[in-house]
Each structure stands twice: as structure tokens, then as C-alpha cells.
């Protein structure tokens, strides 16, 4: 069997980034939630907010630690497996990546130390401020990472000299055409993801009859957020899709499974895209719906994949299905949020067991949607690393053999399969120990991480 270093490098990249993205998908939303809770505590003086905040801060610390170690892996991937891409684009993307590192360090790590360890060392307003700064730090991190990614999707503001890219205008580079939409769509996705985790955890606590007053507050706050953000996210997704139609038409055609240029264009609800034969099998479609969604007109024309040579088309079925799974989850999310509100308005939210049970099982849905959205946009960019300009095949490190990459990929697989289940089990045990005043005090006496020996041996008799 021939081992292709290019294919294996892509698999390795997908593996390490898919696991890593789950952590920011959670911590960005959670940091903001903690800041809100700290604010409520600061302004009302009600200790219930403090207890909820401490509960989530403990979980935040674990996911942040895992985010640090899985994040350190990422910048080195550019060098180990994508050295030609690095050489060609470093003049443009590396300052943005460096700013991400600075933000993660200067704001997140800095103020996280205060947030975790120093509740009694600093005045309450400073603690509240630290929570806000951690949240702003996570948002700035996503700003720079998505600016980098957006430049790869819709490159602007550069000049190309001998196959390498040099900066001309930094405003154009940072604010490339897809960036505002990607940033809003991505960060909203992260907030929604966290919202469903908070909803699910709250529902679980209610069903187990643990920390019920605090759990009810969690469920209520999550529903408040979701009823606004889920519809907003659908609207932002629509804007992002129309931006893609304009700037990355091959990706959009792959999303739609559209081979021929059509107007009016139907919307394929299901199909098995067949790239070899440039057609779909078993297609189920709704006439005019594609035109209506993409061009906002009854008969609008959309370009099909056949308008480009086969070697410029992305893989179709992964994009096609990833997009549909993402949209499917979004629709279920809307159903969940609306159902929750209907029950709440009827006063039956906290004792409708089937709904609480559903919330519990729906908690990871956002993560799946994030991964599917990420797959849509990254696989849809193929066969390019810099859209239309630099091919993925020309980006890979030339010295690597298939055996090299297979070996490293297997190591990453084994280590991540050890680390992630352990991390999830740990966070689950923090959830099981519930919300309460006991935990908040336990973390203060420890010099190290707040979940050190004292949260287990002194703080928690579980």
C-alpha cells in the first residue's frame, strides 16, 4: 500500500485541529458566561452568583489547561508538515498568529491567574475586571486566528513574488472579505455551543435533585441566550453563505452539490454526490428553493461545479454532508430553544422530565455543529491552502515520507485518545460534585491549580 504524505498530513492536521477546536468552542462562551456571573455577583452581592461562577470556573480551568497543551501543538504543525506553505505565507500570516499568541498570553493567561487563585487577594471589582479581561482575551484570540484563516480563504492586500506572498496593506489582509462574517458566525457558534452545555448541565442537576436553585438559574439563563442567538446564528449563517457565493463559488457549489449552472436553482435536501461522474445520485430537491436562499430571488442563477476544471473542484460529498448536518443541528437547536420557552411560559419547565432529559443529551450538539461547520469551510477551500493561489499539494513538507507522517499521526491519535476521555471524565466529576459554597472556599487555600489535592481530599467528600 502506498502511503501518501500529503493525504496523511491532511489527516493529521484534521485530527489535531478538530480536537483542539472543541476547547475554544467551549472556553470562549464559558469565559463570557463567567464574566456575566461575576458581574451579577459584583452588582447584586448575591452569593448564589458566586457559587455558580466558581462551579463553572473550575470546569473552565480544566478545559483551558487542555486548550494550552493541545494549542501548543498547532503552530508547530505549520512547520513540521506544511513547511512550503509556511515559507510562502509566513510574511503575512505569522504576525497574525503571533498576535493570537500574545492575546492568549497577555489577557487570558494573565487574568486567568487572578480569576482562579486570587479572589481573596484582590478587591471584588478587580476580580470582576479579571473575568471580563479573560473573556475579551478569548475573543481577541479568535479574532486573530479567524483573520488568518479568512486570509487563506479570501486573500487580499498582498503581492506575490516567486510564489511567496508579501504584505502590501495590513488593513486589507486582516479585514479580508470573508473575515467579518466568519468571525461573527464562528463566535456565535461558540456561544451557542456553551449555551447548550450550560442548559444540559443545569437539566442534569435538576433531574438528580442536586443544587436545584442554581441549576434552575443555569437553565433559565441558557434559554434566554439561546432564544436570541440561535435565530441570529441562522441569519449570520445566511450572510456568510452569500459571502461564500460571491468570493468562493466552488465551495458554495460543493455545499449545494450543484454540478450544472442553474437558474432557477433547486435546493438538494439529500443526494449522493459523485465527483467522478460529475453528478448526484438519489437527489431529493425542492424547486426554486436554492435560488431563493442564495440569491434571495425566485429564479436566480448559481454557477455549478462543472464551470471549473475538475482539478479546481473541492471534494464534494464531505462538504455537502457536513453542511447538511450543521444545518440539521441548527434546526433542532431552534426547536429546543422554542420548546424550552413554551414550557417556561406555561410554568412547566423545571418539572417536564422528558425535556430536561432531552437537554441533557443535547449538550454536545454544538460541538458537532462546530466540527461540521469547520469541515464545510476547510474542505470546501480545497484543493487550495490559499484559495485560488496556492495548492494544498504544493504546501506540504517535501522531505516527509508517508511512513514518517503515519508514525506521527498514530502517536497523536494514541495520546489524544488518552487525554480527551480523561479530561471529559474529570470535568464530568466536577459537574457531579455540584454547585455549592463548599467548593468556593476549597479553591482558595490551594497554591497551585484550584482542583489540586484539596478540592478532592478536603473540599469534596464524593
Amino acid at each position, binding site marked *: 500500500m502506498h502511503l501518501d504524505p500529503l493525504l496523511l498530513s491532511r489527516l493529521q492536521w484534521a485530527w489535531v485541529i478538530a480536537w483542539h477546536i472543541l476547547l475554544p468552542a467551549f472556553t470562549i462562551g464559558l469565559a463570557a458566561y463567567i464574566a456575566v456571573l461575576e458581574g451579577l455577583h459584583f452588582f447584586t452581592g448575591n452569593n448564589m452568583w458566586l457559587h455558580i461562577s466558581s462551579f463553572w470556573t473550575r470546569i473552565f480551568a480544566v478545559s483551558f489547561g487542555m486548550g494550552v497543551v493541545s494549542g501548543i*501543538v498547532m503552530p508547530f504543525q505549520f512547520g513540521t508538515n506544511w*513547511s512550503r506553505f509556511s515559507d510562502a505565507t*509566513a510574511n503575512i500570516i505569522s504576525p497574525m498568529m503571533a*498576535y493570537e499568541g500574545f492575546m492568549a498570553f497577555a489577557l487570558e493567561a494573565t487574568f486567568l491567574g487572578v480569576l482562579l487563585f486570587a479572589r481573596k487577594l484582590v478587591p471584588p471589582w478587580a476580580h470582576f475586571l479579571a473575568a471580563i479581561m479573560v473573556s475579551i482575551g478569548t475573543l481577541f484570540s479568535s479574532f486573530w486566528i479567524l483573520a488568518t484563516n479568512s486570509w487563506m480563504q479570501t486573500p487580499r492586500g498582498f503581492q506575490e513574488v516567486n510564489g511567496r506572498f*508579501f504584505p502590501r496593506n495590513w488593513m486589507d489582509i486582516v479585514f479580508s472579505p470573508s473575515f467579518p462574517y466568519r468571525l461573527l458566525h464562528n463566535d456565535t457558534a461558540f456561544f451557542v455551543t456553551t449555551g447548550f452545555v450550560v442548559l444540559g448541565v443545569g437539566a442534569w442537576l435538576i433531574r438528580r435533585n442536586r443544587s436545584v436553585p442554581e441549576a434552575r438559574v443555569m437553565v433559565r439563563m441558557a434559554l434566554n441566550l439561546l432564544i436570541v442567538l440561535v435565530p441570529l446564528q441562522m441569519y449570520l449563517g445566511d450572510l456568510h453563505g452569500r459571502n461564500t457565493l460571491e468570493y468562493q463559488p466552488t465551495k458554495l457549489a460543493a455545499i449545494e452539490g450543484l454540478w450544472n449552472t442553474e437558474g432557477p436553482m433547486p435546493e438538494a435536501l439529500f443526494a449522493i454526490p459523485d465527483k467522478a461522474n460529475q453528478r448526484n445520485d438519489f437527489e431529493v430537491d425542492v424547486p426554486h428553493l436554492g435560488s431563493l436562499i442564495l440569491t434571495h430571488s425566485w429564479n436566480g442563477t448559481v454557477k455549478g461545479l462543472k464551470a471549473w476544471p475538475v482539478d479546481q473542484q473541492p471534494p464534494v460529498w464531505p462538504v455537502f454532508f457536513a453542511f447538511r448536518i450543521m444545518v440539521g443541528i441548527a434546526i433542532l437547536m431552534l426547536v429546543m430553544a422554542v420548546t424550552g420557552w413554551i414550557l417556561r411560559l406555561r410554568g412547566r419547565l423545571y418539572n417536564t422530565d422528558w425535556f430536561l432529559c432531552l437537554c441533557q443529551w443535547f449538550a454536545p450538539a454544538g460541538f458537532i455543529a462546530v466540527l461540521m461547520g469547520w469541515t464545510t469551510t476547510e474542505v470546501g477551500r480545497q484543493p487550495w491552502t490559499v484559495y485560488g493561489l496556492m495548492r494544498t499539494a504544493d504546501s506540504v513538507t*517535501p522531505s516527509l515520507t508517508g511512513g514518517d507522517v503515519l508514525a506521527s499521526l498514530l502517536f497523536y491519535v494514541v495520546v489524544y485518545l488518552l487525554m480527551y476521555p480523561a479530561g471529559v471524565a474529570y470535568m464530568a466529576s466536577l459537574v457531579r460534585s455540584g454547585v455549592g459554597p463548599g467548593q468556593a472556599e476549597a479553591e482558595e*487555600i490551594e497554591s497551585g491549580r484550584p482542583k489540586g489535592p484539596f478540592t478532592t481530599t478536603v473540599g469534596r467528600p464524593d
Partner: protein
Amino acid sequence: MSGYILSLLPVWIGLLGLTVFYYVLFDGFDLGVGILYGFARNEQWRRQIMNSVAPVWDGNETWLVLGGIGLMAVFPVAYAIIIPAVYFPILAMLLGLVFRGVAFEFRFKHSALRWFWERGFCAGSAIATFAQGVVLGTFIQGFDVNGRVFAGSSLDWVTPFSILTGLALMLGYGLLGAGWLIIKTDGELQVWARRAGRICLIGTTAAIVAVSIWTPLLDPWVAQRWFVWPNIAWLAPLPVLTAALIIAEWRVLRPGFEFLPFFGSIGLFLLSYLGIAISLWPMIVPFHYTIWQAASSESTQAFLLVGTLFLLPIILGYTAWSYWVFRGKIRGDIGTH
């Protein structure tokens, strides 16, 4: 781009050089502590040793990211050649760091798997350190380059010299770690740390001697740098100072000196670092690209420098503050203070 009268490159060389040195010192001591952890006699010692670095390790590790991306930003071609050449050492380093990083979190909770994470903390620290030493050795030996890409194989790094530098760094980080433990602990554990420090110092001295003799033999370029008149006169103080510092370090490892062992080991690292810099200057990809040839565009350097000059003081200020907050001895029964 022609508007810049003065090049920013010297500023960046200074910043990047300091970043790498800062990383080596700071993650160096907590990796060294991780290595020594494997030799601790009992559970209480292990907990004290781990707590001595628990509040600071993640901040220290972030400098690795800054160093890596800094190399990419300032010397793109060096990043694109060096990192593939050390593909497996980088892999080993990253996975080692993952293991030791999560061990801080998981050790306490999973009592059934506790032995696993405890060994993971020590093994991860040792592997990451060895791998960094191998990267250094490979760097000193130079790379097989064709145009702007690495032309060798992913196993070129396996040489006796790079294995030696790998072991040397384990001993050196062990010395830094012992110095840190002397500051942070007292009683029997401190006595033990002093003894560990002396063992590491003997090993480090042997390694410094071996690397100093071997490096000029590797390449006539390096030999000429050191042994041609008048360089030999200018550079003679460096080995003399190193020898003096080794003797002084041996003495301060006796009881009675709390901080000097740590600062002495920093001095040894500084002199070794200078020695390597003198050997290879101005090469950034030995022996193919100089720092002037490998530099990124002025616009790239300028764009990044603006934010760096603003953010770096904040980061350093916070770091100093956090070390201040967590100052003092670690006790067996509770955390710091």
C-alpha cells in the same frame, strides 16, 4: 517599505534571542523539576515538588509558542527548513509536553490511574527535554538544504552529537530544577535537592566540556571562529568564566545558600548560550542562511513590532507579579506560605 531608514532586524534578533533564552530558563526549570520528580522518595515530596511549579508552568510554556511563531515571523525560511529536519524530536517534545501538562490536572482526581499520570509527568518532562536538546544538537550540526527546503530525511537528526546534547540538556534542566526546588522547599527535601543538584552539576560539566570540544571538530567554520588570532584572545574569558562559575556553583550547593544555586545555574546556561551564539553567528540555518538572508519583509517585522513593544512589558510585568504572589516555601501540609 523603502521608507525605513534603520532596519528593524537587530531589534528582532535581540527579542527573539531573549525569548528563546527566557523559554529555556523558565520552562527549563519546570521541566527539570519534572525530571527530578521521578526520583522523589515519597508521596509528600512528590506533591510538594509538583506544587512548586503548578501555578507557573503554563505561563512558561506559552513562551514556546511565542518563540516558534517568532521564528516563523522573523526568519520564515529558517522555520521552513529547521522544523521539518527535526520532525520527530518536535513530535516527541509536543507529546511529552501534552502528557506533563495534563498530569497537573489529572493526577489528583483519577486515583485509579494516578500512577499512570505520575509517571507521565516525569516521562513527559524527560522526553520533552531530551527532544529539545536533540533539536539544539541538530541545529549546531547544520542541515541538508536545497534552495528553500530541507533536503535531508526525517531521521538525519539521529547522530551521536545530538544524542549527547539531548542528554546534556536533561542534566542542565535537572540542575535548574534542583536550584528551583532549593528555593521553594526546606528540610529533608531541600537536602535531597542539593544532592540532586550536585549530581546534575557533575553531569552538566562533563557535557559542557564534551560539547565544547566536539563542536569545533564538526565544522571548520566554528573552529576558525574560536581558534584564529585575535578571536582566541577575545573569547578566552568565556571558558574561564564558565570554569569559575562551575566551581562557585558546587560551593553554593552546600547548605546555607537558598537562592544562589538557582542563579548560578542560570549563569551557566547564559554562558553556554553565548558560546553557541558565538560559534554560529550569523547563521540561522547553519551553514546555509544567515540572519540577513533569512529575514522576513520589513513590513512584516514592523507590523508585529508595534504590538510586541506594547504587549511584552505587560506580559513581563504580570509574570513578575505572579512569581511574587506565589513566592515562599512550599510546605508539605498546605500550598505556598
